[in-house]
């Protein structure tokens, strides 16, 4: 059973979002607490606890709700922010930086959407052009969307604020809730895609790549804007054939024109995450290969290898007909990527 225990902050007992979620998750043990911080992250709950079911916390997020995104987060030219509506994820990607990030694998859902939207409005007012807001920095945007039912309220905001752009980032094919909403020109649903065998090996519990591709196709035909993240690219002997296959499927499913952008990134992590991966997935193939510490301190494939992969995948996309201005390389500092690229 997903979420056998639900912790609810006492002052949210009758909050409409909480009641809606409870309706969708009947038969759970409900516990009322003063604040989610009294329990969540209070003790170090190892990531291995995910093997048994994780708890759900329904809470109110305090402090900053909208934060500036790290550099190279999205298409350059516009300011990028991410907003916090959930902590942790029901999927289990071995390379995910969330493992152990919050000292607990339990999931927290923040239901004070109005305050998040208010902060978005204020952020938008600070800029004159388009402003991007990304969901999914600390979770998957769609995995539980049929239970949380959180996007309609955001839709109202984005419908009324065409300058604000929303990105919902996902490795899920769960588009039930989205299909109930009308496509908006300033909302992009972005799918993270990997080579099929890599996904099967390292992205446990997330939707299979073919299912993600199908979901993407359905949304695209319904008129939704689509984004794609080919990130992280993980080397296998068949990596280039696998990405050729993927590029073709992307083209078939969504078509060239409904895809707003495609980001490409090679696997990378900091040493702390590497230790966590080693602990949480002993013997994983992910760590059997060689990494170097690049100039930004992150562990990456050696430069010739990762740049070869990034350029080769970029070429594959270009050959498949995706225009170059919609392709960007993610999270590589400029001097690493383009210094010598004519």
């Amino acid at each position: 059973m997903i979420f056998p225990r639900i912790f609810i902050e006492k002052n949210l007992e009758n909050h409409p979002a909480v009641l809606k979620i409870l309706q969708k998750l009947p038969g759970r043990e409900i516990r009322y607490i003063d604040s989610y911080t009294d329990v969540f992250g209070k003790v170090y709950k190892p990531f291995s606890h995910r093997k048994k079911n994780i708890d759900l916390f329904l809470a109110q997020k305090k402090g900053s709700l909208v934060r500036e995104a790290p550099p190279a987060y999205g298409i350059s030219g516009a300011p990028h922010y991410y907003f916090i509506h959930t902590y942790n994820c029901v999927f289990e990607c071995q390379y995910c930086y969330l493992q152990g990030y919050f000292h607990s694998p339990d999931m927290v859902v923040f239901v004070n959407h109005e305050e998040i939207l208010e902060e978005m409005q204020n952020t938008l007012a600070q800029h004159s052009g388009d402003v991007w807001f990304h969901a999914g920095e600390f979770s998957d945007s769609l995995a539980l969307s049929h239970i949380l039912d959180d996007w309609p309220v955001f839709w109202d905001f984005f419908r009324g604020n065409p300058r604000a752009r929303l990105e919902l980032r996902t490795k899920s094919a769960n588009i039930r809730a989205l299909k109930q909403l009308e496509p908006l020109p300033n909302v992009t649903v972005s799918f993270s895609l990997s080579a099929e065998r890599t996904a099967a090996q390292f992205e446990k519990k997330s939707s299979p790549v073919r299912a993600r591709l199908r979901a993407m196709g359905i949304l695209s035909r319904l008129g939704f804007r689509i984004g794609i993240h080919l990130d992280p690219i993980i080397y296998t002997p068949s990596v280039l054939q696998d990405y050729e296959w993927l590029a073709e499927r992307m083209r078939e499913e969504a078509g060239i024109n409904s895809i707003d952008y495609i980001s490409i990134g090679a696997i990378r992590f900091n040493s702390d995450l590497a230790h966590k991966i080693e602990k949480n997935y002993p013997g994983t193939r992910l760590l059997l290969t060689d990494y170097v510490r690049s100039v930004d301190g992150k562990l990456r494939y050696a430069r010739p290898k990762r740049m070869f992969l990034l350029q080769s995948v970029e070429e594959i996309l270009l050959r498949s007909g995706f225009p170059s201005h919609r392709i960007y390389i993610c999270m590589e500092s400029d001097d690493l990527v383009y210094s010598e690229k004519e």
Partner: protein
Amino acid sequence: MQLLHFVHRAEAEFFLPRAEPLEFPLPGAYTIPGGILIISGEGALPSLSYVSAMLGAYPQIDTVIHYGLAARLAPLPHGVVSVRTLYQANGSEPDFHSITTSDAQAREDLLSVARRLLDPEQSTQFSHFAGMLDREAYGAAFAAHLFRQKVFIYKIPVDSVENGKVCTDIRNLSSTYSQMYLEHYEANHQNAKKEETAEIELPEGFYFTVHQKHLYKKYLQYAEIDSADPELLDFVRQGIKHPKKRTARLLEILRKENNPIEARAEELLDELFAPYRHKGVDIKLPDAMETNSIRLSLDISRFPSMKEAAETIASFPREQAVRIMNGSFSKL
């Protein structure tokens, strides 16, 4: 060697017929087949002290096994329950740190408290973190953790804290519990074969340092093979005499096989640099090729004139080298 830890003598009852008193400054220590048994008495400090003392005195101990009772705070399976993670609370709030036992299959958590818990509200609060409560297990696990030894914590969940009363049928039943511990121990630890450490077989005629052994294992695992190709091993053996040099060469070959893109870049750079190296130019690439700085050094006396030395440097194909380092080379 194992260290079995109990809190009460009655709980160890079924183990004692096979135990012999151990000469040790602390009372309640026995030798048993395959290890030592200790009875520490109640509380976190005795438990921590006893287990630590034994681990310090007997470095052969590699596994600590604790058996005891725990107050049930949540619905739990019946019988002996293996603990997954232990927390502790000295006051009304649990401490941040936790200890995870060596039982990867365990599913239940336990909180060790300093004092017997009589307040139902407090027990509700603690039940957010763990389904069982005791006073001693964290101490035993902490000592094992400190000495970096394996630890298994087994509990029989008994009372629940209700209306401020703790049910106390424990003493009358301790003989039954002791028998359950023994049965569990025999099934899971006494007769359990020593886990086989997945050791790889090192090829003959090579000398491996610990680091090289680790690398060798990693390369084989990545290639999903159990041992290197015998033909390759023979090739290296025949070509190189010295066992240490053979190992270095073998690892280099395996590294390149697992990293064909890097290997290709290195090969291209070697080709590019060959004429310069031939002339005596020493070429140093940046660490892991992460930046574009390439250092050239040469011994001018090896050149007929300064002009030729300068021309050699001027003709160095830096841009081509950087392009290769930057992954711009044709497909494999």
